[in-house]
């Protein structure tokens, strides 16, 4: 039994990144480094109006006054921000009219990633805004959505086509001054998605984007803005894969979500950016700021399955501003080899009768470090606020770390807050029991890990849950099929 476990641990460490391939297409890039000229150049390439350029410059100037956050339980090698290319776009000869016009090389990449950019997507009910590097290549099902008045397009397009909406909401939830990376993102964001669901509209399909980092040494700075107007509903899926690289790549996205009165937004992420090899070489640095604001009776639910990135720094949060609003955070974070993850959520209760629920499942293997960090804050006016947090850690092997850093701050006596955390390993008894029933140790570990994560996986939309389950299996691959 001991040997068996040892084998698993070893083979876990030896798994390779399945999506590690590069697409060979030409890209146009700006020179390395960051200054006001680069910021202006990004803005002008994208044909942005003056106010947007100004916004970027303000953010850039503020960013220069800021320093890197160091409070996370992460060991981050120094990053030379002047050694990064801040803008790259795939070169395209002309505007695309139909699927046939999409670069076949690009199409093959998407196919390998399993993104169905074809008609069968209609059957799956998925509309995809695929982001390859920095420019949105193809948006589908725009017409279907347009009939309902739903806007789903790239953020660059939104800035040009719907400046009123973008101006009203951009930076309203995550200010550029919020943190080092949100300032950087505001200055240089290249593209991302914009989604607006009008009053009372239930979005008829799951909205989805896939991101990849492609060009060598390119930073990727997505900006996502989702607005669900009063009484609207949308389920939004975000999936990420990145090809294998030797040097580390920086990813600093900002996602802002506005959930107006009586509206509901579900935001699901499956993140498998390249985690680096088993020696800890390479891999993506993922520094993400995700936050939503809930107005009266609104509901925001974050679900994430994090298996990738060399370093993850990510806290999808809810500001429960309106009375009776609800925030949820469901997370599975798996780290292996030398991966480091410091992830969790912030639930800021400001309104009355606000409720939040946190379920976090950490899985650490290899020599990885996996931390849950959370804040539950109850303001003085948040009468009858409720929070329940459950943060579990599963350790596979004795060289990894699993940490829990919750922070509870309560200023209202009627609040009821409950936090629980446990740390455990897969028990020999469980493995023995499975073995005795004829299940191999590898399969047993896979089963147990999936069972452990089930509560979170169940929150994902069906087709996504299957992918997430596969991804967990891949992350345990080699021994655990």
């Amino acid at each position, binding site marked *: 039994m001991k040997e068996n476990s040892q084998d698993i641990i070893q083979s876990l460490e030896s798994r390779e990144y399945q999506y590690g391939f590069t697409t060979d297409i030409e890209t146009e890039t700006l020179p390395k480094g960051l200054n006001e000229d680069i910021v202006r150049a990004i803005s002008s390439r994208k044909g942005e109006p003056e106010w947007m350029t100004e916004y970027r410059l303000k953010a850039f100037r503020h960013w220069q006054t800021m320093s890197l956050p160091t409070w996370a*339980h992460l060991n981050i090698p120094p990053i030379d921000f002047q050694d990064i290319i801040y803008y790259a776009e795939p070169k395209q000869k002309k505007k695309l009219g139909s699927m046939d016009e999409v670069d076949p090389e690009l199409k093959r990449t998407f196919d390998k990633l399993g993104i169905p950019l074809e008609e069968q997507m209609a059957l799956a009910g998925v509309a995809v805004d695929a982001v390859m590097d920095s420019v949105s290549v193809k948006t589908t099902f725009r017409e279907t959505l347009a009939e309902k008045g739903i806007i789903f397009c790239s953020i660059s397009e939104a800035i040009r086509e719907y400046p009123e909406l973008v101006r009203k909401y951009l930076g309203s939830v995550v200010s550029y001054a919020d943190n080092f990376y949100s300032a950087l993102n505001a200055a240089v964001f290249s593209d991302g998605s914009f989604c607006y669901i009008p009053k009372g509209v239930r979005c008829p399909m799951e909205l989805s984007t896939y991101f990849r980092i492609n060009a060598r040494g390119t930073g990727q700075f997505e900006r996502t803005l989702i607005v669900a107007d009063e009484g609207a509903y949308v389920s939004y899926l975000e999936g990420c894969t990145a090809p294998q690289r030797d040097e580390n790549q920086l990813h600093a996205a900002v996602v802002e979500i506005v959930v107006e009165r009586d509206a509901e937004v579900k935001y699901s992420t499956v993140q498998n950016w390249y985690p680096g090899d088993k020696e800890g070489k390479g891999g993506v640095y993922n520094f993400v700021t995700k936050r939503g604001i809930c107005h009266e009776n609104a509901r925001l639910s974050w679900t994430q399955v994090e298996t990738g990135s060399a370093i993850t720094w990510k806290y999808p949060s809810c500001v429960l501003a309106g009375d009776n609003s609800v925030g949820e955070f469901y997370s599975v974070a798996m780290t292996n080899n030398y991966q480091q993850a410091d992830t969790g959520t912030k639930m800021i209760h400001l309104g009355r009768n606000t409720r939040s629920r946190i379920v976090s499942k950490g899985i650490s293997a290899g020599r990885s470090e996996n931390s849950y960090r959370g804040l539950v804050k*109850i303001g*003085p006016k948040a009468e009858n606020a409720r929070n329940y947090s459950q943060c579990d*850690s599963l*350790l*596979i*092997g*004795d*060289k*990894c*770390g*699993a*940490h*829990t*850093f*919750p*922070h*509870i*701050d*309560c*200023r*209202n*006596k*009627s*609040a*009821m*807050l*409950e*936090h*629980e*955390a*446990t*740390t*455990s*390993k897969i028990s020999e008894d469980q493995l023995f029991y499975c073995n005795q029933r004829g299940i191999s140790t590898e399969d047993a570990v896979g089963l147990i890990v999936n069972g452990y994560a089930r509560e979170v996986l169940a929150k994902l939309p069906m087709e996504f849950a299957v992918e997430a389950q596969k991804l967990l299996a891949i992350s345990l691959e080699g021994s655990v099929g």
Partner: protein
Amino acid sequence: MTFEELISSGALRPFKGGVIDSSVSTSLPLVAHNIKSLKVDIAAEQQVRLVVAYTKSCQAAVEINLAPNSSLELVEVYLADSYANITVNQAENSRCKSLVALLRSSNATYTYALNGRNAESVFDALFIASGSEHATLNLNTRHLISDCRSASLVKGISAGRATGEFHGLVYVAQDAQRTDAQQQNRNIELDNSHIVALPQLEIYADDVRCSHGSTVGYSDAEAIFYMRQRGISEADARRLQIEGFVQDVVSRCQMEPVCALVHEAVTDKLSKI
């Protein structure tokens, strides 16, 4: 009853620190009263009862070393604004049972380093902050070697405009396999007060049983319903709950006559909130 009276009555034996071996009589509990610094070395196989009382505002540093197979029952009572730093180093098979009652604006830091196998630390604490007080209790339990056990229960009440803080850490080093560490924190917030809780786990070994829990708010609706169904008014039911909440910790004190004093001090404090 006060500590001064207890000491002068001869129920406790004053103690200024040093080595406690078989030459030192431990038939009575030892007491360190309003000390600035205290260093205690408990020799192997010794069983010691020690009370540290803060009845005048003070800054204190306490270091206690437990040799193999020794045991310590420690009671710490804060009846004055104090700043205290207590470190307990435990060798193999040593056992330390601590009970803390922090009843004024104070900042107390407890560090338990489990350095020897089979060491055990049990920690029970209660803090009550009222008026404009600020009570902070820091607990750092460090499992540095395999096969040690720790269990802690920290209860806090804040009332008035006070702030109560609990910072807890369970640290488990890579070699500390078969660690059993449990940490529980329960808080009640009243009036316009403020509770901060940071119960943390930092774990580098896999064969461990570690858990922690932290809650704020204690109105167990089921229990209130149960009591009211028996004819007890809602106000009385809530008062009973708070008394029960506190009693749960206070009743773990086994060192007479100090416990009676602790009980009295806690009751007195509760009557004022």
